């Protein structure tokens, strides 16, 4: 097994891809040496190298199977992702990781999962665990701009057979505009009570608004988890780019318990921008 802090990627092959939402695509990669990397936890991330185009952080939508095959959802937003979208099947890419702190291993009780946009991606492996758990009652609230911009269509179809998925839209013609916060009454009713835990990932405004609404309903900060994005480069807490408070998101995050996140962000409380935590995929 390679050193988890190694800055050298492992080789992987792009084995499959399909469009999955506006400007978003679902990719499957196959590690050349499946045993060479540690097994990731839901919510952790990896660094993807597209040779000649740099390296960027992405989350696991599907964790590696026994053969080292795993999936990621990628939105085309920059030069690296543009190059990735041009790659043919069979192309060699580099993978480092897994990195960071994953989501808490919750497999029982009432669990509320709230995602916005591409923020559904890092929560996906956690939903997979929960939908197979006999002791958990999970529910997904998924907010998107429109139907066309929704991601992970195949995953959501599979989840619906095991748990409720509430979908809300910002700008979908013919559908009343609603945010995940607007769907909380419905979510609490479907869960038959208040959630024991909540996992949130999405744009900053949505995450903090949802967190505030859940706290107001009595959920303790210690039961609330957010997945935060920053500009990650090295993945091992050295290059400095993803600083947040006194730590680095690539090591202390990307998953933060809400009280811990507030402590980090609260060092400069008068900075309105400090309360930003955007997730993109």
């Amino acid at each position, binding site marked *: 097994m390679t*050193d988890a*802090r*190694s*800055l*050298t*990627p*492992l*080789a992987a092959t792009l084995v499959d891809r399909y469009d999955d939402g506006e400007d978003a695509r679902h990719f499957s990669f196959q590690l050349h040496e499946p045993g060479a990397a540690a097994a990731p936890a839901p919510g952790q991330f990896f660094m993807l*190298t597209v*040779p*000649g*185009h*740099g*390296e*960027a952080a992405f989350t696991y939508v599907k964790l590696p199977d026994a053969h080292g095959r795993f999936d990621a959802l990628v939105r085309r*937003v*920059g030069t*690296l*992702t543009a190059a990735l979208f041009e790659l043919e099947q069979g192309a*060699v890419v*580099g993978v480092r990781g897994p990195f960071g702190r994953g989501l808490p291993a919750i497999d029982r009780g009432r669990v509320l999962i709230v995602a916005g946009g591409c923020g559904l991606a890092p929560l996906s492996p956690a939903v997979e665990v929960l939908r197979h758990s006999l002791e958990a009652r999970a529910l997904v609230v998924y907010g998107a701009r429109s139907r066309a911009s929704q991601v992970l269509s195949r995953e959501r179809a599979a989840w619906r057979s095991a748990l409720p998925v509430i979908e809300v839209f910002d700008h979908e013609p013919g559908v009343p505009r609603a945010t995940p916060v607007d769907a909380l009454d419905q979510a609490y009713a479907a869960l038959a009570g208040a959630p024991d835990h909540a996992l949130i990932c999405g744009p*900053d405004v949505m995450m903090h608004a949802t967190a505030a609404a859940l706290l107001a309903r009595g959920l303790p900060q210690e039961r609330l988890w957010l997945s935060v*994005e*920053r*500009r990650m*480069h*090295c993945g*091992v807490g*050295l*290059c*400095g*780019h*993803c*600083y*947040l408070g*006194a730590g680095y998101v690539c090591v202390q995050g990307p998953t933060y318990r809400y009280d811990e996140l507030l402590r980090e962000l609260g*060092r*400069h409380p*008068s*900075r309105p*921008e*400090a309360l*930003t935590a*955007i997730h*993109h995929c």
Partner: protein
Amino acid sequence: MIAIHRLGDAKRLCAHLLRSRAVYAPQLVDGEARYARIEAAIDLPERALRPLFSPKQAFFAERETLYRFERGRFVTALPEVSAQALFGVAPCDLAAIAYQDRFFAADAHYRRRREATLIVAADCTRACDGGFCHVMQTGPDARPGIADLVLHREDGSWLLVVESEAGAAALHGLDLAGTDADAGEAGAVRARSAARVRAELVDAAPLARGLALARNHAVPDARWDAIGLQCVACTGCTTVCPTCSCFAPRDVPGPDGGGDLHRERVWDSCLLGGFAREASGHHPAPSPGQRVQRFFDHKLAAEYVSPEGISGCVGCGRCDVVCPGSIGMRAVLARVGTP
């Protein structure tokens, strides 16, 4: 501390080290002080040269290859480093090395260079112009437990403090018979000298007031915004800073254009506008005020002080020399320390 000797002549030690390793020391090169490899033994001047660049790049290279991508394979490239010594490291730079040792403890490239290097520090026995090591508690005498060997000049003669096993091993073959010095006496000599140098350095009080505020995030954001207006994002401070450790990846295509390449890391700066900007356009620190606040926080705030009590700023004063906006560390400490 393992032993103390009355060395007499520091040149003798330098000549001895040159027999077993490459030696780098502050030198005047084209009229400019810098760390350079020496071929012949040197003495250390009473007033130490102050290279604009610390020896940071001996361990954390300004630009270095991390791996090669060749014919579809990723191959780690670690530096080949033979035995070397840094001769005459100033106490402030020595503290910076300790700070970086901790930060890069698991970095293979850093370790490879660091483990091949013997460090010979030299107490400052004359005050430098603009340094404030006495505020940051990194000098003017070398902090214990970092260097392998420490030199102390007294009346043109040198005391040699052996601080590590590697330092003791490096002295094998150097005739030190009958030179043992009394530890208590030598300690008193160093303490007297340090007190004398402290008295010659800039007034510590206003800087210490600024430091106390910055340590506890008690400097108002508006103050940082005003300081940020003077930052032109030239990255001079982060480049010469002996503890700055940020880097960026860079892909360099191979010569044949066939898809082979190597990945480098190069020094980067948190003061650049694009440093933390994400591909989505989101920026966690969009204003210059926030970026300079982050920079000074990282150097001064309590949560970044190492367990040994070393801050991200070691008081070397280099950023004050290079900053075109007059917001080097000493200037900023004095400013925020003034009501």
